[in-house]
């Protein structure tokens, strides 16, 4: 027994070092963002001598991260709303209402899960260009909805399958239409799944760079992540401003992670065990 104990305590060292290696990069970046350029060049490791937010303000205003953040928030909010709406509608129909072709549709959705974006990005860009949707909010929102809908429908269908059919039947006998059942029963009952699928979709859309780089090319319409990529060329000399831009893009995700860690991990786990 004591040997097992000792073995366990020996593991603490590498695991602790790894934990440090997991958080240190972001702490380093946050520290650099507080420094002046001079301070950074003289010693990049030392703790900043004061909490300076000038770099953050510069990144927010003159670098344009503020405008990019607004673009991101608008696009992500609309995309996630539509994903949850369409996903729960389809999930309800596919799990509770047996109709001709419902099985084939579900399998089709599963298959779509395995088409990576890279495989369809060239023709999708052409379709979007032909419909005049390139460099518009609706275009990017539609692309996100299409990208993450298979996953959303799949998880919502699996979740709604666990709701007993008697509930739907009883509500129908009480005189509800199918739409009434969806609105009054399925949406409230689906809240936990909608929350965790919503958080995951928010992260996916917020973190995406390839789709927005492809469909929102102009500087005015950049999302925050594309904004981060543009920092590299412009601020390669001014590392503290660069670090500030990165920090601005990371903070919302960090906040979401700190408060909703459980739901995120559970969502990932649910996706894996149901797969």
């Amino acid at each position, binding site marked *: 027994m004591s040997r097992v104990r000792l073995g366990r305590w020996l593991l603490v060292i590498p695991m602790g070092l*790894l934990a440090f290696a997991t958080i240190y990069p972001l702490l380093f970046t946050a520290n650099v963002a507080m420094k002046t350029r001079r301070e950074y060049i003289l010693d*990049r490791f030392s703790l900043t001598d004061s909490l300076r937010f000038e770099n953050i303000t510069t990144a927010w205003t003159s670098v344009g991260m503020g405008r990019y953040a607004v673009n991101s928030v608008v696009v992500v909010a609309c995309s996630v709303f539509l994903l949850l709406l369409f996903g729960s509608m389809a999930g309800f129909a596919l799990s509770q209402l047996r109709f001709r072709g419902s099985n084939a549709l579900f399998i089709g*959705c599963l298959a779509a899960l395995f088409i990576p974006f890279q495989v369809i990005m060239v023709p999708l860009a052409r379709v979007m260009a032909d419909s005049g949707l390139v460099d518009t909010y609706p275009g990017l929102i539609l692309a996100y909805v*299409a990208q993450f*809908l298979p996953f959303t429908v799949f998880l919502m269908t699996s979740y709604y399958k666990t709701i007993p059919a008697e509930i739907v039947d009883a509500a129908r006998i009480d005189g509800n239409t199918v739409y009434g059942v969806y609105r009054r029963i399925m949406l409230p009952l689906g809240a936990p799944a909608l929350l965790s699928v919503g958080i995951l979709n928010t992260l996916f859309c917020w973190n995406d760079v390839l789709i927005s780089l492809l469909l929102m090319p102009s500087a005015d319409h950049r999302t925050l992540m594309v904004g*981060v990529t543009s920092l590299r060329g412009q601020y390669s000399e001014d590392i503290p401003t660069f670090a500030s831009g990165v920090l601005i*893009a990371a903070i919302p995700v960090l906040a979401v992670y700190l408060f909703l860690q459980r739901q995120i991990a559970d969502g990932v786990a649910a996706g894996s065990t149901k797969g």
Partner: protein
Amino acid sequence: MLAPFVLVAPAVLILVLLRLYPLLLGVNFSFTGDGDRDGAMVGFDNYVDLLRDPLFQGALRNVGLLVLLLPVAVAIPGLLATFIYLRVPGHRFYRSVYFFPAVLSPVIVGAIFNLLLSFDGPVNSILGAFGIGPVDWLGDPDVAMFAVVGVHVWATFGMALVVFLAGFATLDSALLDAARVDGASLTQVIWHVIIPSLTRTIQFVFVTTMIGMLTSMFGLLYVMTSGGPEGSTYLPEYYIWIQQGQMNRPALASAASTVLFVIMLVVGLLQLKLLRRAGRED
């Protein structure tokens, strides 16, 4: 009677128009020409061009490298999950800290590691303190791809860890206790109890990790190396982006997309087969 169809209509419409139709269109594209020959059928010309292009050959070589590194990328979270499951002191803390980089965008991760891995950056300073280096992590063609893959593993192992832990939750703990009563060592427990009971989870992690390596490293490549130095960090997805966005050769890019799709199918099926065989021998 119509209601179910109304409910699924938006989802079906979007998926057909923006996923299924582009998929078919893309395969068709790959057999047409670029530039002057736009729209004309050119047979397999794009595929011939593709296989002759040194950049695409490099991208395929790098895919081979990813396949070789895959067991490592799966073993790391697997081992860590085992330790956490066996309740190493502080397991709750590790669990939440390790998962944290998984929520960051590859772009943010890439930008941060641009700072850390720069020639005069912190990583080289730390190694220098031990008399190692300096290494030109992102500027040396022999090193850059390993650096990028290493950062990708850093950023994603927490995701696989959570999946492993979900698998462990289904594990029969009586089996573990029995092994321990019989005096089995940790290696024996991992080899004879944990791996055979978690075959499904391990398969799942293998496939998703490979898919992740093939389809979600774009952000890192774009920010950290832009495919360089000397084209040594190309992957098919980056090649597709360059041909489509920068070189204006959408038909060639479509051919590369089709090849990527085939690679993913082959890799997925091959792994399932290998793992199934390994599972049977146990």
